[in-house]
């Protein structure tokens, strides 16, 4: 009887779980588009705040960081491969530009920060970095409603634990509100406070 009860409980629990996106990212507080991919554009307001507060080249805009932030004023993402019409993998021209500046000039690729807006490919990379850093805790926060501050993404800049970049913003600040509401934005009845994100960017 006990076993039967456990089985029923397990089935009920499984059925109530939110489906993880089929994007290969795992739990991530971003909706899916019609093709089942992450709707990266919806992340843009949050990306702007992360780029400004965390993504300078001397902090998380660095390839040496587990949490990487790509974007306009810092690290730029260069795809190294793409697919041709036949679905065959090929080296992207941008990859050649990585090691040969003359190719970058000839093809008008963005050569560095400050010269082109943040691309969707860059936001996708930032998302993968953020959501892949603590996947179990991200699942608890984004899909099950745990406190957003459980994630290093917030506990570090709030200085709830040691952070080399020290305290980046205060609890209750616009930046905090932007990121914490985003982390809960896929829960029923919750949404991103896009105004907080927008206003946070008004302060340098």
């Amino acid at each position, binding site marked *: 009887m006990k076993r039967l009860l456990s089985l029923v409980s397990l089935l009920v629990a499984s059925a109530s779980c939110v489906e993880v996106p089929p994007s290969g990212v795992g739990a991530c507080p971003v909706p899916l588009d019609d093709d089942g991919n992450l709707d990266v554009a919806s992340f843009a307001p949050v990306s702007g705040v992360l780029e*400004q507060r965390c*993504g*300078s*080249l*001397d*902090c998380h805009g660095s*390839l*040496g960081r587990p949490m990487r932030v790509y974007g*306009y*004023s*810092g*690290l*730029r*993402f*260069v795809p*190294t491969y793409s697919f041709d019409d036949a679905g065959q993998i090929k080296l992207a021209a941008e990859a050649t530009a*990585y*090691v*040969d*500046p*003359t190719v*970058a*000039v000839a093809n008008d690729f*963005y*050569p*560095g*920060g*400050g*010269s082109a807006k943040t691309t969707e490919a860059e936001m996708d990379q930032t998302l993968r970095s953020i959501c892949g850093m603590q996947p179990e805790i991200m699942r608890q926060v984004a899909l099950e409603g745990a406190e957003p501050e459980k994630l290093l993404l917030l506990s570090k800049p709030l200085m709830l634990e040691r952070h*080399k*970049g*020290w305290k980046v913003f205060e609890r209750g600040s616009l930046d905090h509100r932007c990121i914490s509401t985003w982390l809960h934005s896929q829960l029923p009845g919750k949404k991103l406070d896009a105004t907080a994100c927008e206003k946070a960017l008004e302060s*340098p």
Partner: protein
Amino acid sequence: MRARSLPLLLLALAACGDPYRDRLIDGLPDEEPNFQPGELHRPGQPCLACHSSYGGAPPFAVAGTLFTTAKLDELPAMLGGFTVRVHDSEGRSRDAVSNACGNFFVRRDDWDPAFPLLVEILSGDPTGTAPLVPVSAMDSRIAREGACAGCHIGRPSPLSPGFVSIPGTSPSSPEASLPGACPTPWLGPDPRAPIQGAK
């Protein structure tokens, strides 16, 4: 007993090096024979690699070199006479004026700023009475790196916005653009060298 402790102590001291900084310093070119350490030497290089408590040279809080261009297909010239104004997080600011070879610096003994920093560049005579005119400002904050070339590494790449520059300017001092007047600016690491950690 003391003899036993000595090798351990030596081992501990040897382990105090910073491989990241050592590699950075080792990767810089040698001093040019005509420009021994001084205010004009090593334009475009990450000053705080050596001008820090680790590097041994007099420590700087902020330092860099100003150029005329950051474009890939233009040769940069060093730009003197501009004022670099650094604002820290406690509302304080300091000015440094770029010299004939574009170098500018703030000594740490004079100012220990609270990061992050914001930076703007102004034109005009810094010794005159007319107010200086802002000509450029950084889009992003400086979170911790006092050496401009720590991020503005040589020419532009996905890892660098390129030299600190004021586009559309020409060297203010004609003498500075004469051959031999300034050291050859460092153009950054060889772009064809493999980038560690690159995808």
